[in-house]
């Protein structure tokens, strides 16, 4: 509709003149005058389907009622959305929808936020002529690891089917049987399982598709809702966190979040909330004595830590700090600030496979959709699932060409070209139009080669980080900028006993780093190692002092997403008693040394200034590297655990099963 966007059409809706671009559908035009046309099957992102027939409107000059969802505006059109004829048609449709509806609203998870309830109250007759028993269909069908389906409540709007086809590109859900026997099922009968299944529960206008994790947990009016940003990956989708009685019961997408998530959430972002209340969460600082962890107080922990730093300085040994992607910008900034104030230069965030997080110039997610060629390197579908939806959109609906360089995970179900190096990629892309490079930031040589190959096309560059706020950590200066050692060198030197204190914040290099064995030696050889973690990870087990941290739902701050946007994360939960945020830990340490810390206003200003500062580095440029870049280890899925996923049994079942060979 881009070419028609300039041409405006004037029409009248309910007596109010409206001017909208040509080609606009009546349902959208009515929104301009805040007049609601009820819809079930129509969805802004899925387009019209014309199935539910509830969006009836009267257009003067047309004998029959028209459906607002598939009637484009025309000049001089006179539309009535609330007159008697329309109301009678709508009430008929609602009466028909309720003929076989079980009316089990009291036990329905959707009750209270259900379109069928709302419209039946708004437009329904309030009485029924039905004298026959209702049709019985399966209830509580186990559709897959995430979804429970109630066939009786289904109004066959096919939003889920169309989402699966159009948005997720999976085509698993279909309508089976015919007529009033219609049921929703997977085409093969296999469990419904892919990275985006949870979205159908939000799309479903009735209570047919509901989440297992939220099943019977709460009623919508009991929830305390906080708008925040998802920190499961670096995409940073906007998200609602719904809390009841101190428990995060569900997360929901933000529908009009066009800039970032496009209104979708991946299953990891939606369902990985079970770890928050896991019994194995750390809630007290642990200090290792004679190989055994003992519980200590926070004051003692800070004192021990400060003493260790003083001892290391006295002994002439080095001090290092490694920050991870779990840190918010404020925490990353303060970590750098405190460490530099203590004279520590050995700072790095690159504790995993990824070696670069910020491309030279920011590019918005929306711009990616309009590229005519998309070159990906790395398992982008796993690393940044909702960004992958944009790639699906660009390829399947906007005709972009997808080129996959090297190992990029499972092959997508649509047209793509697999190549092995940047030179071949240059042959495979479309000759015209914009090029976008989405790279996982691991193989610096590949990144540099891609940047060099496509330099003449001025490509959009995205780095899909493995850690959610890697980009923030890089922008906040968690790099050896003052001549300190980088991660590889820190690990190597520490393994040789050169370090006195090593602090790890939200990083688990023993699991994620290519040089995990060197790192293990480093942790053993260093007399005092501090790890701030939610759980007893591999790195925490090897540490001297383990500090219990708050999760992203329990603290407020900001993160930077792949596109370079500064996103707020708002606390929605109370942290377990005893856990502190990394910011509070750093303040506690700073107090031991009587350091003057920035005020919160200064901190915010510093974060904003650094987030807004353009980064000069090009793709594949090793920043402040003091050692040769390591060859990236084989891609490790985020689902494998090591992160928070390991602490929720259900999450493991959400993963897509490996694609069967020959299937």
């Amino acid at each position, binding site marked *: 509709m881009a070419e028609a966007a300039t041409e405006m059409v004037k029409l009248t809706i309910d007596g109010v003149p409206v001017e909208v671009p040509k080609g606009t559908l009546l349902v959208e035009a009515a929104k301009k005058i805040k007049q609601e046309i009820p819809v079930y099957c129509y969805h802004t992102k899925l387009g019209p389907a014309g199935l539910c027939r509830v969006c009836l409107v009267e257009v003067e000059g047309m004998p029959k009622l028209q459906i607002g969802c598939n009637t484009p505006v025309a000049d001089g059109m006179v539309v009535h959305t609330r007159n008697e004829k329309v109301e009678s048609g709508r009430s008929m449709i609602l009466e028909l929808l309720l003929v076989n509806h079980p009316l089990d609203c009291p036990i329905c998870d959707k009750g209270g936020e259900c379109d069928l309830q709302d419209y039946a109250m708004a437009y329904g007759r309030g009485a029924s002529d039905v004298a026959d028993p209702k049709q*019985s269909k399966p209830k*509580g069908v186990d559709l897959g690891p995430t979804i429970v389906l109630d066939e009786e409540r289904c109004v066959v709007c096919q939003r889920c089917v169309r989402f699966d086809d159009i948005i997720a590109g999976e085509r698993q859900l279909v309508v089976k049987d015919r007529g009033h026997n219609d049921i929703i099922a997977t085409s093969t009968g296999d469990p419904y399982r892919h990275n985006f299944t949870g979205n159908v529960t939000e799309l479903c206008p009735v209570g047919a598709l509901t989440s297992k994790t939220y099943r019977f947990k709460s009623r919508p009016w009991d929830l305390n809702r906080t708008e925040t940003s998802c920190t499961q990956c670096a995409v940073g989708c906007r998200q609602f966190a719904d809390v009841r009685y101190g428990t995060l019961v569900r997360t929901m997408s933000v529908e009009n979040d066009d800039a970032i998530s496009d209104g979708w959430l991946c299953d990891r972002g939606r369902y990985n909330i079970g770890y928050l209340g896991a019994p194995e969460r750390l809630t007290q600082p642990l200090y290792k004595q004679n190989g055994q962890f003992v519980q200590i107080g926070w004051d003692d922990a800070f004192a021990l830590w400060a003493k260790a730093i003083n001892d290391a300085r006295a002994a002439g040994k080095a001090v290092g700090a490694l920050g991870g992607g779990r840190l918010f910008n404020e925490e990353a900034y303060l970590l750098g600030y405190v460490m530099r104030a203590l004279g520590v230069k050995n700072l790095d965030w690159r504790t995993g496979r990824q070696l670069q997080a910020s491309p030279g110039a920011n590019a918005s997610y929306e711009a990616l959709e309009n590229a005519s060629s998309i070159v990906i390197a790395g398992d982008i579908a796993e690393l940044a699932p909702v960004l992958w939806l944009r790639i699906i959109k660009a390829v399947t609906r906007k005709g972009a060409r997808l080129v996959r360089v090297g190992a990029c995970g499972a092959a997508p179900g649509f047209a793509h070209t697999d190549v092995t190096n940047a030179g071949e990629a240059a042959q495979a892309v479309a000759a015209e139009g914009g090029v976008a490079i989405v790279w996982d930031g691991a193989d610096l040589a590949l990144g540099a080669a891609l940047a060099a190959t496509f330099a003449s096309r001025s490509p959009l560059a995205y780095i899909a980080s493995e850690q959610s706020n890697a980009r923030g950590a890089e922008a906040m200066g968690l790099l050896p900028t003052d001549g300190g050692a980088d991660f590889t060198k820190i690990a190597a030197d520490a393994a040789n006993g050169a370090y006195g204190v090593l602090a790890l914040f939200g990083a688990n290099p023993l699991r994620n780093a290519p040089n995990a064995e060197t790192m293990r030696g480093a942790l053993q050889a260093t007399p005092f190692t501090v790890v701030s973690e939610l759980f007893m990870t591999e790195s925490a087990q090897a540490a001297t002092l383990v500090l219990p941290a708050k999760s992203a739902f329990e603290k407020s701050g900001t993160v930077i997403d792949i596109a370079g946007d500064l996103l707020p994360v708002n606390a929605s939960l109370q942290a377990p008693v005893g856990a502190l945020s990394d910011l509070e830990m750093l303040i506690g340490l700073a107090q031991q040394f009587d350091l003057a810390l920035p005020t919160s206003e200064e901190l915010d200003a510093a974060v904003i200034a650094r987030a807004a500062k353009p980064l000069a580095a090009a793709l594949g440029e090793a920043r402040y590297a003091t050692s040769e870049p390591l060859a990236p280890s084989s891609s490790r899925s985020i689902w494998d655990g090591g992160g928070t996923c390991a602490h929720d049994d259900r999450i493991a079942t959400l993963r897509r099963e490996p694609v069967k060979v020959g299937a």
Partner: protein
Amino acid sequence: MRKQLYNVGAILKGLSITFKFMFAKRPTIEYPSVKKQHAPRFHGLHELRRYADGKERCIGCELCSSACPANAITVIGAENTPESRKSPGERHAARYEIDELRCIFCGMCEEACPTDAIVLTPRFEMADYRRGSFIYAKDRLLVPPEAGVGTPPDERPNGIPADLGRVAEVKSTIDITAGYGATHRGEILKTQRRGLAG
């Protein structure tokens, strides 16, 4: 002297009222050895009722807690499983708590209940020594299985039968014998569909 006589008159006048009540019928009763009969629709302590087959009526829908003006009711729902079936249908109340100190005994919960599970009985003796013991959970609210279905709501003036629950059962859209018993996780198969097509 005259003034003194006047005082005697006033005293006698006052005492006459005292003596009148001394010989009148006493309105007070010897509670707790004697107990007063309440009106049949007195709003007292809550009770969670059962169906005749022993299943809990409460489906954990939380409508009572949303209707409660005093915010005294806490309900947390959970799913029935074939191994542990507490109520008909898919959902039951895993936790059901009423803070009787917050409760104003207005009976809105009873009005809101779609299955007539919660009723206000005429029982009123709840005195205790600790505030915490006024939070009644399912163990004290639910009718014990051996005590039958529980107290039925009283006769309503507008002709609704005494046991509204029976009406709800009859009017229910779900076939209690077949539907309720077999609705867990798609146990009703396509072949079991009722209606003409089946």
